[in-house]
């Protein structure tokens, strides 16, 4: 009867596994959201775990949209407490949150991030405008009043001032938040002012010159070092880490430096955010101290630790303003998001 006993034990073990899983209150903060904010948030998470008595929060990189979806699923220990986002919450997301009973949300702006168009440092300087980039990567371009399939294969065909080089751009794939921002801030913004486009145009060509290269920005940096004809599109922090080997193009005459991005002069920059579910304060320990640490000068300040990780700090007055909002747990309203 040995086997019978084993079987009984196995079955009862399975049953008890099932029973043990009913959700209990957590003692760890749970954070989800943007892969762009992830390196900064995980830095704060580690510091928080190491220097306080709270247990280290768990942080998952789900993308801004995925994070807000989980965040807005409801209240309670099985939903996240904080979500990071590389864009502001959309009104539709706010409404979904509201429908699920998540109404008391505090918004925090932590800094900015830029998207750069870069090439190998040996290539020299490159000056681009958003219009030129749009014409290089769009699926259709206006020609004699009509939209036609993109005929450009060489930069010099777009503008004679540009180098005689084949158009080859390694950039993020359609699932990436960086791609969303690139489409919005470069293509969308440029197409609005151009005749021939009916307002907003953000469809990327699929015939070869634009090569979607995976979510890993390291890969794009490596590729443009190997293929010096090519350009790469990636986040500012990767430029910062590879200053000695890659060089960023100026866009509309502005260089992607920390100051230019922070001041909003560099056109391809976006703000980074996190959202706190205030209903969880009090049930999940440490949320207030975590947000306080995140908003501190030590972290997001002009000379803060996150600057070393590639975050571009906000101007001092704006930092102070957001720090106050977070400390007072100000609730974000639908009208703020429009």
């Amino acid at each position, binding site marked *: 009867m040995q086997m019978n006993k084993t079987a009984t034990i196995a079955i009862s073990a399975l049953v008890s596994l*099932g029973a043990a899983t009913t959700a209990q209150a957590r003692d760890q903060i749970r954070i989800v959201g943007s892969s762009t904010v992830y390196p900064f948030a995980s830095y704060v998470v580690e510091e928080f775990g190491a220097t306080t008595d709270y247990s*280290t929060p768990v942080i998952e990189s789900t993308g801004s949209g995925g994070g807000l979806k989980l965040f807005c699923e409801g209240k309670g220990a099985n939903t996240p407490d904080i979500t990071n986002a590389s864009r502001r919450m959309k009104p539709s997301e706010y409404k979904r949150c509201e429908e699920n009973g998540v109404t008391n949300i505090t918004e925090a702006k932590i800094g900015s991030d830029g998207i750069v168009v870069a090439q190998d440092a040996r290539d020299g300087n490159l000056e681009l405008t958003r219009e030129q980039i749009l014409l290089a990567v769009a699926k259709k371009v206006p020609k004699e009043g009509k939209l036609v399939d993109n005929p450009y294969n060489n930069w010099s065909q777009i503008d004679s001032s540009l180098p005689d080089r084949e158009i080859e751009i390694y950039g993020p794939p359609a699932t990436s938040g960086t791609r969303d921002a690139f489409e919005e801030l470069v293509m969308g913004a440029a197409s609005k002012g151009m005749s021939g486009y009916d307002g907003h145009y953000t469809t990327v060509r699929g015939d070869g010159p634009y090569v979607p290269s995976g979510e890993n920005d390291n890969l794009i940096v490596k590729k443009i070092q190997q293929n010096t004809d090519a350009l790469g599109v990636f986040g500012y922090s990767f430029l910062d*880490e590879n200053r000695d080997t890659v060089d960023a193009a100026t866009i509309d005459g502005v260089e992607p430096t920390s100051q230019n991005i922070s001041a909003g002069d560099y056109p391809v920059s976006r703000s980074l955010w996190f959202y706190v579910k205030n209903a969880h304060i009090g049930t999940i320990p440490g949320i207030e101290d975590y947000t306080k640490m995140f908003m501190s000068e030590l972290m997001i300040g002009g000379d803060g630790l996150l600057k070393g990780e590639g975050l571009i700090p906000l101007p001092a007055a704006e930092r102070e303003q957001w720090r106050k909002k977070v400390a007072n747990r100000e609730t974000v309203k639908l009208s703020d998001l429009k």
Partner: protein
Amino acid sequence: MKLKGTVNDPRMQRRYRAEKRFRLYAMSAVLLALAFLIVFFADIISQGYSAFYRTEVQATINYNDRVEMGDYRAAVSDEIRTVVSRGMLRNLPREVRDNPDLKGTSETSWMPVKGEIDQYRKGHVDSLDEELLASVQRLDEAGRLGFAPNWAFFTNGDSKLPELAGIGAAVVGSVYLLGITLIVAFPIGVMTAIYLEEFASDNWLTQTIEVNINNLAAVPSIIFGLLGLAVFINFFGVPRSSALAGGLTIGLMTLPIIIISTRAALRAVPDPVRMGAFAMGCTRWQVVRDHVLPVSLPGILTGTIIGLAQAMGETAPLILVGLIAYIQAPPTDITSAATVLPAQVFTWAGMPQTAFAEKASAGIIVLLTVLLSMNAAAVFMRRRLERRW
């Protein structure tokens, strides 16, 4: 004169030449595969071996009043502060508060330096900030910098400071996950196989089941991730990111592999063994328990080990159940947040700093070593323990 059908016959020689050519093609295929493997191993090892040692600096820590107040920067001299890993200093205020006896004392020891300096000394980056470079050179000449084995790589969890990041938490997570996978998949898989092979009659129902099990073994692993998310997390409320959620999901994935290999092992037992036992009046259960199972056990275990080795390297389904996350501490029980070794490699591979590329390669080396030893154990069992008939 040429004779037909002898080696001198031109047709015969043509056939021999054709055979020679074919052998050459086949051999070059093997050589090509081998070359790929060697290039892969050489690349990974050359990139990763340097993570197993690190640069350390001899530093003196003063536990003074200012440290107690929270200003950990005051614990060391200005020069050391620019060089030593911040992760070694930030805990000091808490340490002093927890042990008041430390106050007023000082301690000299070797500590890890910042990741960038470590990378510079290993020759992975060519430039450092000028001031920092001057400090490093001064300390180097004074003999206060040196390489030491990086044990922390095996004991620490993940960290944003590359000099402190390690695979410790991920290894514990992997052990938890494999344990749960084994508990779930082994008994269910073996019992299913025994029933199908020894008890069930051969009809359309068992044939349908068999076809489906074979199909399940070929289903992409990400599908099991979706299933795990829908069933275990959303329906049963298993905590996200927990070893339990991951283990159950991976267990489902491993199940068909165990069933198939167990059935093969049972089928390899010759029928006369069963017949003999039946002839002695044994019931079917006794035949299975006392005669078939004992001799097929090595085969079953081999299949299980291979299934577990595959489970060990799996990442895709774990993304969906939340195990690919920034988790520093090892799990304390099956419901707390855990990460696994391949997930850790995946996370590091996406980081901008060069120091993490080194860590990722080192993680792959560890992962490959574990997988090789698991597979070697399986081969050993098959060779040594299996009965031949």
